[in-house]
């Protein structure tokens, strides 16, 4: 498990939770419990195509290495579970 730290409280959170918070922080109209592991992110309007570059930079920072962007498809962003296994599963792109 990779641990990251929240900016404010410095409490460690897992990468899955870090991804959830990243998405929620960009949508002031929702709370973190609106996104479970299988909530459709694209169809639900929680993630737009223009968010992807920012999200990939965030994931790269969590992983400490670049992502092979050419291998990605929109399916990788379907829901939190897919997102997490794509970038933090073994092996990731």
């Amino acid at each position, binding site marked *: 498990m990779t641990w990251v730290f929240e900016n404010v409280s410095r409490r460690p959170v897992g990468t899955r939770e870090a991804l959830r918070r990243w998405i929620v922080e960009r949508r002031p109209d929702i709370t973190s419990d609106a996104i479970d592991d299988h909530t459709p992110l*694209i169809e639900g309007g929680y993630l*737009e*195509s*223009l968010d*992807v*570059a*920012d999200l*990939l*930079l965030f994931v*790269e*920072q969590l992983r*400490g290495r*670049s992502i*092979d*962007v*050419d291998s*990605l498809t*929109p399916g990788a*962003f379907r829901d939190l579970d897919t997102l997490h296994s794509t970038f933090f599963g073994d092996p990731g792109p």
Partner: protein
Amino acid sequence: MTRLAQTITRLCASSRRTFRNPYTWLVFPDEVNRTQWFTSPELISLYRTPVWDSLSERQRRVLSFWEAVNFYSLNIHGEKTLMEGVARVLYHGDFLDASDYLHHLLDEENKHSIYFGTFCRRYAGKIYPDRKLAFPSDRAAGEETFLLFAMALIFEEIVDVYNAVMGKDDRLDPVARRINANHHAEETRHLRFGRELVPELWRQAAHEWPSDTITRIRAHLEHYVRAVWREYYNPDAYRDASLDDPWAIQNAAWSHPNARRHRRTVSAGCIGFLVDSGVLEKEPVL
């Protein structure tokens, strides 16, 4: 003849007068000295941030090379998206009268990508990948086409501010200076076309679109301006310039007040135009 039609006639004549063979017009030397300036220092993403202050003159010049590779790479990706979209509307009913100029636009964008791609591949051995990814969209065709040209206007106007400065910057390596100068000269026509076309498309369609469509378009364009700017802060370039913790550098540079001021200054012309045209209601948060 409408104002747009007059502009198209004038732009076609200009494009034909300055038509160039991209394989003979610019001769690329076998190699370049990476410790020359390739990006004007004032336009480097880290300029006037704490990291910039910590770099030696040599490190700054090396970074300027990799920032040029990033600038040319993002141009390649932006032009590719534009060419795909323009190819879709070429000879389409609504754009039939613009087809003569769209051929020139496609030709010139393709040539720009040849210059950018040759530089990146010959001197850096790479083109930085595009982190943008298009999701399937359920937008109506008219909305999609409007966004294509409005986003192209934003992208090209920001790029052009850089080209105009660097095309005249005697500190730059001659190849970099010439690529920028040529891009500025030809993009001036594309910008003229965009500034005529985008308000015209808006006038034709905006009164037919429901208010939630207009709200969605405005939000998308505001989001797009920020997404364009994000590409100028590329951790890949920082890593290639041998800077430690490139993602932290990217975050810090993006958030720095001087960088934010720079983005607002460079974007002011195009944002002001879109606000004056009624396309945007306000300046996006940058």
